[in-house]
């Protein structure tokens, strides 16, 4: 689909806003609908759209495999790390009250980082699965 001019132009117009919307859903999830999972999927969808229009190698340059794989693990570690931070600061595992002097602010901070972890892992996994499927077809077809 590389030569389709309409697709290229429309894709270029859309993708920045999709990524921006993903960030909005991620960080506005506390106040409106959304959260880490949805944001991760939207961010992955933006990059998958990029890969569909401009080709898989271009997307792999944009989001290289090592980074995507690191994201897969990093999100889980961030989530679990927030839990461990709760223990270190004197609470139970995944207790957010202790993360800040004010318990409510601590809750807010904990939720923020946990959602960030969810978003990172989901983006990484979705992208990685897409890369795997698309890359496999490519190597079999020799295209």
């Amino acid at each position, binding site marked *: 689909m590389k030569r389709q001019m309409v697709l290229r132009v429309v894709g270029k117009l859309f993708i920045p806003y999709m990524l921006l919307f993903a960030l909005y*859903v991620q960080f506005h*999830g*506390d*106040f*409106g*609908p*959304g*959260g880490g*999972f*949805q944001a991760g*999927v*939207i961010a*992955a*969808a933006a990059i*998958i759209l990029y890969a*569909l229009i401009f080709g898989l190698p271009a997307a792999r340059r944009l989001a290289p495999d090592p980074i995507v*794989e690191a994201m*897969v*693990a990093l*999100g*889980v570690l961030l*989530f*679990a790390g927030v*839990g461990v931070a709760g223990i270190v600061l004197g609470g139970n595992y*995944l207790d*957010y009250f202790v993360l800040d002097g004010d*318990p*409510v*602010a601590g*809750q*807010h901070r*904990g*939720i923020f980082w*946990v*959602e960030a*972890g*969810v978003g990172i*892992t*989901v983006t*990484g*996994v*979705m992208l*990685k*699965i*897409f890369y*795997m*499927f*698309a*890359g*496999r*077809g490519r*190597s*079999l077809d020799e295209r």
Partner: protein
Amino acid sequence: MMAVTVITIVLQRNLFSVVVLAGIYSFLMATVLLALDAVDVAMTEASVGAGISTVLLLGALHLCGGEEAKPLHRPWLPLGVALVIVGALVYGTFALPEFSDPLAPFRTHVIPRYLEQALAETGVPNVVTAVLASYRGYDTLGEVVVVFTAGIGVIALLRRVPRREEER
């Protein structure tokens, strides 16, 4: 409309149209969830069910061809099992509380506390986020680990082939 979509999916032999119809079904489902005021779930359904999984299934179709094989024998036994299970499940729904009954047990247990205290306790106006990330933090951690495991599984299954062929 959803019933029509499902019946078409079952009758359709061309897998490409099945994938596209499944995407349509997901969008219809998202509309239903929106009508039930479950905006977060509707968003997930629209983006995952209709977006990502359609792309992934199309990628899989590209690998394995687009026509469903003819069944080898008549599916009477599976049909019977499915009907018995449907019967049992429908029988089970008779014991559930009425739809939107405010005195149902699961509505009087922890939900009032979440709805009334979430803003004061967590400072997060969206109760869904508060429940998911804070009250039910363990469950969400488990969920993320499931997503992680799925990704690792796909990597483990699919990585070998390109290496052998392209000598990377």
